């Protein structure tokens, strides 16, 4: 990696990929959760009320897919510059974002646990090691 503008561009691209893929997963998770709440899958009955409730589900899942596709593009932009063995482990950060998002977003109401918090600390430590080693600075 050369110093200067590309340096920040690369970090920005990886950052965008991580945030976008975490956002995509949260949206799809929320969408699927809402779909589970609807009885349509079991009854296959389509009433106006079901269609109205189906709209937010579709919006979430589709927005999620769009974010996912965009994250693949920024990801490939990053891969043009960085080793795969440097970039790929950093995707672990998206698990951290998904977890934090699922706890904060009331819709998903997930709870905080000790083991998961240790998991976050380990991922952050690992990312520090992967990006900090001499030959592979971001």
């Amino acid at each position: 990696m050369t110093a200067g503008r590309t340096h920040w561009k690369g970090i920005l691209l990886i950052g965008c990929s991580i945030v976008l893929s975490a956002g995509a997963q949260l949206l799809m998770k929320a969408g699927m959760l809402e779909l589970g709440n609807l009885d349509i899958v079991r009854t296959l009955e389509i009433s106006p009320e079901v269609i109205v409730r189906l709209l937010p589900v579709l919006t979430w899942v589709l927005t999620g897919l769009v974010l996912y596709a965009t994250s693949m593009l920024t990801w490939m932009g990053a891969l043009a510059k960085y080793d795969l063995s440097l970039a790929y482990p950093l995707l672990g950060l998206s698990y951290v974002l998904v977890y934090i998002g699922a706890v904060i977003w009331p819709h998903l109401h997930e709870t905080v646990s000790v083991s998961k918090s240790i998991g976050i600390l380990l991922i952050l430590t690992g990312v520090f090691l992967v990006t900090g080693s001499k030959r592979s600075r971001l």
Partner: protein
Amino acid sequence: MDYVLIFVALAFISTSQILQKIAAVKADKQPAGTHFLRRLAARKETWWAVITLGTGTLFWLAVLYRMEVSKAFPFLSLGTVLVLLASRYYLRETISATRWTGVVIIVIGIVLLSGS
């Protein structure tokens, strides 16, 4: 059977990463003039990457359908190991001991974070 499905899903998803890397590097090396995204779209590796990612995702959905999410998700971290091995032996990247250590710690972190 479920574990075979998990491995097939991970193999497809990891292969997609290798293809994305190859496509990105080739598109980046082409003389400028057209936009990077256009050059990406013109490479067949890009589309194979999309196809393998889609196939892997379908296998993964099959896994989620058959297994409890909290039991299945920690296995996703094995994908990181597969991608790293492929980067080392197929793409011939140099991976320092520090980076390997970081990867192992991240994998353990993902297992803890994605478990029940």
